[in-house]
């Protein structure tokens, strides 16, 4: 064992010495043999010659000795590598094009996969993440809901205490809190967590301890906080003495008890939590909204998680939870807060609700991004395929050109296996180079994508790193090896089959007719794939244009917006109300500001307040869906430029404590709930999670339908209430209609707000158009990337077509020369070449068209305002591609027509 290791070492690193010794050994042998022959009476000259002859060629002996040396394969690999590098260096244009092609393909794929992996695929950074599930209730909950996948606090307690399925359950609620420490104030994202959160997740503390069940037993009792590792590093500079000290959260003094383990930022991936607080501190962390101590069952707000017991499958767990949920629902259906606001048929529907378990890593961001990112990955996959086809084409062309050289090597008895090995080594070199460059490209692309895709303030929050991790690297290496193997092996095998005599005899012979047809098929595939990508790009770009042109339905050019929440700075209800009143007056006097509007729910941010409504006119008939609701200030509609089509707007007179009395509704609301009647004067009520209500809100005005949550939606039924009639005052979205470009007022506004009240930070100050742009970021991402990929694909196809045509022309130079000599016109030659080009393009287009028609429906949900088989896009893409590819074919065709017959015939 040791001796063979030593031999390997010597063979690899002391080859020169070994070879010298071998020379000497054989020399000695020859001398000994000739000495022997001389002793037998042979003359000295003959003796040495005979000895050499008997030995059978000294060089051959040396070669066979080298062949038995350990690690001989490494040796030949090194030789192949050296040879490969030399060959590639000798042909820089080929190497550059091939590597660039691969780098683009691999880079685009890596960038997309890296995004997909981090946004959609990655599991929670915890122990056995696949065993942790979200426990949600399907169906209508008949109450108020904070976001998807939430249940009420009492429901969580019931499930936690009665199930046999989970080894542990916990729940959490995301909140924005104001942090104060050492004279610094900021708003950060917090996670309110039950005491079982850290133990069930299996997340430990890097410093101090995590929140224990004891910390979360009694409401308002334990003022403790755990910091996330990254927040501790950035905000507290990794100060180890922070444990035991006090920080202010929403102006409550909280003791830092520990720092969570590195890499753990809460269970909502993409929205990292900075601090963790016991959920029993809910009242303090979310002022004027409780849901915990008063235990409302018609208010779902916590996301519940469970860790499956060993051996329990998701299906088993779901099945065993159904009866528990059903008994809870039966109990809830008898409660006055439920019966007071529902009908018998509502009750029937309600009792059909079921438990559903989702992967623990699921969240809304993932849900939104899943389809677009998979789609983009599919597009980049097609680009990689195209790139590979191009590379295969290049290799085929190159190997065909080297046929003669290969034939020579075959003739001197180089093994076919060795030749395949050597060609593969070259391809591997190429693809490694491509992968390395591609990785760098991917890093840059992700950096740029993240910057474009996310506004500056969100980019800091959204922790998607452009640095690829092990899985991405594995993906790259896999892609690289696959490309090298498949697309290197094909030409390599062909190369090794080279017919010796044919290649050596005549270069213009028909030796590679098979190669030409393979190359043609590759180009045909490229044209087809390019058409597919171009059509996709066209559809997505037109979708974006449609959405941008349509807009929300009101003028957005001179609008500024920001959010503000005095309640997080410790302001009471009364103080908050007066804060808003004073702010309204203050901003109206700001120079350059035409009008100021307030609303509690933001426009075009993708979410809204929804609540079931009731009224005597539609009692008994359950109304599908809940209307979108909002509280607004007096000049809200005027500020946004939304006209009142009937009745009046909300005015400062719509004041009054704690109950909504009047409402402005949109046309859809009027049509849906008061069909065929004058909506003005009609009454309805809001279903309340705590008590039965009566319909005493009067409709005072009607506005036209405008988009509210996002630009894609068909405007839902909407109702607006005067915010001064509301019961609680918290955050507010402020809209300013300016008299000039709104951006020039941003700094002035910030300064004005600081002077107005320096304790209350302005959050998310931007123009309405920026807000709209942000709401279209997914569409923009998909449109711009698919356009880039479409262009790239077309470029690759054009290069491929040019290559194959130019090659055909080169091979046929002699034939063309003869034709010209016999009197063919230049136009005949051009026609002859172009006929083939158009045949190729035509075939590619037909295949591409059928593919695109078949696949178009898959992206229907991603489109807006056009048919997935939009004829304009299809025909337009085909024309663009045909023109580009036709031009690529025309260049070699023209080249062919200028062939000089005499030269052509003499050369070959």
């Amino acid at each position, binding site marked *: *064992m*040791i*001796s*063979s290791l030593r*031999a390997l070492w010597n063979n690899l690193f002391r080859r020169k010495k070994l070879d010298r*010794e*071998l020379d*000497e*050994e*054989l020399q*000695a*042998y020859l*001398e*000994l*043999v000739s*000495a*022997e022959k001389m002793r037998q009476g042979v003359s000295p000259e003959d003796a040495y010659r005979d000895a050499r002859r*008997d*030995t*059978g*060629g000294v060089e*051959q*002996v040396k070669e*066979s*000795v080298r*062949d*038995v*040396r*350990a690690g001989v394969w490494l040796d030949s690999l090194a030789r192949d590598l050296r040879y490969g590098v030399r060959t590639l260096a000798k042909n820089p244009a080929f190497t550059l094009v091939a590597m660039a092609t691969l780098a683009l393909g691999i880079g685009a794929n890596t960038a997309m996969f890296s995004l997909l992996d981090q946004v959609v695929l990655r599991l929670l950074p915890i122990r056995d993440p696949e065993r942790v599930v979200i426990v949600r209730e399907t169906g209508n909950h008949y109450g108020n809901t904070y976001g998807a996948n939430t249940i009420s606090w009492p429901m969580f307690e019931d499930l936690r205490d009665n199930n046999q399925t989970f080894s542990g359950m916990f729940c959490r609620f995301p909140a924005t809190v104001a942090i104060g420490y050492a004279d610094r104030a900021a708003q950060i994202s917090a996670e309110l967590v039950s005491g079982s959160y850290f133990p069930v997740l299996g997340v430990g503390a890097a410093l101090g301890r995590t929140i224990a069940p004891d910390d979360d037993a009694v409401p308002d009792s334990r003022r403790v906080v755990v910091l996330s590792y990254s927040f501790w590093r950035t905000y507290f500079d990794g100060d180890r003495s922070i444990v035991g000290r006090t920080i202010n959260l929403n102006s409550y003094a909280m003791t830092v008890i520990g720092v969570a383990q590195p890499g753990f930022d809460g269970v909502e991936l993409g929205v990292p939590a900075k601090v963790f607080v016991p959920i029993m501190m809910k009242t303090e962390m979310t002022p004027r909204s409780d849901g915990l101590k008063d235990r409302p069952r018609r208010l779902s707000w916590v996301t519940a998680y469970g860790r499956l017991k060993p051996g329990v499958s998701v299906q088993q767990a779901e099945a065993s939870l159904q009866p528990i949920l059903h008994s809870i629902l039966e109990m809830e259906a008898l409660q006055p807060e439920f019966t007071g606001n529902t009908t018998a048929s509502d009750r029937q529907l309600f009792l059909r609700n079921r438990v559903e378990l989702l992967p623990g890593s699921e969240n809304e961001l993932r849900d939104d991004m899943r389809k677009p990112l998979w789609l983009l990955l599919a597009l980049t996959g097609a680009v990689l395929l195209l790139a590979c086809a191009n590379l295969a084409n290049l290799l085929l062309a190159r190997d065909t050109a080297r046929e003669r050289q290969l034939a020579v090597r075959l003739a001197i008895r180089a093994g076919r296996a060795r030749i395949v090995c050597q060609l593969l080594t070259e391809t591997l070199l190429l693809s490694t180079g491509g992968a390395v460059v591609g990785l760098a490209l991917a890093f840059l692309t992700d950096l740029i994508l993240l910057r474009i895709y996310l506004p500056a303030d969100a980019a800091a929050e959204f922790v998607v790193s452009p640095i690829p991790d092990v899985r991405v690297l594995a993906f790259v290496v896999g892609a690289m090896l696959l490309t090298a193997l498949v697309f290197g092996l094909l030409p390599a095998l062909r190369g090794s089959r080279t017919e010796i005599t044919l290649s050596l005899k005549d270069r213009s012979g028909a030796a590679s007719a098979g190669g030409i047809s393979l190359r043609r098929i590759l180009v045909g595939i490229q044209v087809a794939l390019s058409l597919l990508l171009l059509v996709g790009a066209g559809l997505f770009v037109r979708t974006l244009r449609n959405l941008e042109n349509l807009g929300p339905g009101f003028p957005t050019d001179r609008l500024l917006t920001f959010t503000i929440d005095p309640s997080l700075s410790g302001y009471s209800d009364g103080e908050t109300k007066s804060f808003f009143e004073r702010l309204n007056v203050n901003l109206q006097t700001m120079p350059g500001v035409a009008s100021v509007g307030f609303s509690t729910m933001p426009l075009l941010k993708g979410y809204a307040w929804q609540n079931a409504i009731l009224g005597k006119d539609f009692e008994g008939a359950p109304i599908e869906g809940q209307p979108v609701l909002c509280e607004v200030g007096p000049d809200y509609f005027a500020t946004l430029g939304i006209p009142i089509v009937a009745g009046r707007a909300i005015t400062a007179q719509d004041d009054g404590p704690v109950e909504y009395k009047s409402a402005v509704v949109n046309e859809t609301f009027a049509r849906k709930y008061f069909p065929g009647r004058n909506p003005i004067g009609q009454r309805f009520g809001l279903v309340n999670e705590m008590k039965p209500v009566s319909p005493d809100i009067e409709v005072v005005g009607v506005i036209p339908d405008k988009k509210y949550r996002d630009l894609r939606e068909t405007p839902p039924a909407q109702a607006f209430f005067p915010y001064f009639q509301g019961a609680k005052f918290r955050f507010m979205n402020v809209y300013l209609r300016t008299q000039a470009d709104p951006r020039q007022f941003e700094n002035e506004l910030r300064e004005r707000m600081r002077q107005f009240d320096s304790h209350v930070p302005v959050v998310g100050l931007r123009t309405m158009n920026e807000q709209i742009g942000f709401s279209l970021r997914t569409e923009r991402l998909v449109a711009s990337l698919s356009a880039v990929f479409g262009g790239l694909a077309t470029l690759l196809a054009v290069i491929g077509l040019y290559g194959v045509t130019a090659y055909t022309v080169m091979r046929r130079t002699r034939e063309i020369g003869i034709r010209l000599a016999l009197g063919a016109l230049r136009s005949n030659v051009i026609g002859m070449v172009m006929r083939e080009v158009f045949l190729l393009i035509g075939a590619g287009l037909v295949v591409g068209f059928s593919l695109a028609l078949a696949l178009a429906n898959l992206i229907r949900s991603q489109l807006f305002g056009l048919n997935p088989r939009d004829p304009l896009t299809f025909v337009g893409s085909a024309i663009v591609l045909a023109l580009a590819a036709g031009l690529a074919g025309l260049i070699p065709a023209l080249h062919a027509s200028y062939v000089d017959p005499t030269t052509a015939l003499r050369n070959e």
Partner: protein
Amino acid sequence: MPVPQTDLLQGTLDLLILKALALQELHGMGVSRRIAQITGGAFDVKAGSLFPALHRMEQAGWLTSSWGESETNRRAKFYALTKTGKKQLHNESERWERISLAMATALRTA
């Protein structure tokens, strides 16, 4: 009668080399001549087979080599058996005897 080298059974050459080196260390040609001698001239091992085998066996740790002086006063590489080589010779000899006995019995049976 010399046996053509291609007819050498797999492993036979190794065994012959081990045997040739059993008594003393030899250089390449010495090994070749010693094999011819102990096989009564039946095997004439050529350099093309001999040297690869010697190098392979040295890497396997059966042989060790050193530079010494040949009978023509020339520097030559001498091979000798290692401990492993001796064990290998012993084992291989036994195996070979079993095989040849079996073969002989088989061929004698009518």
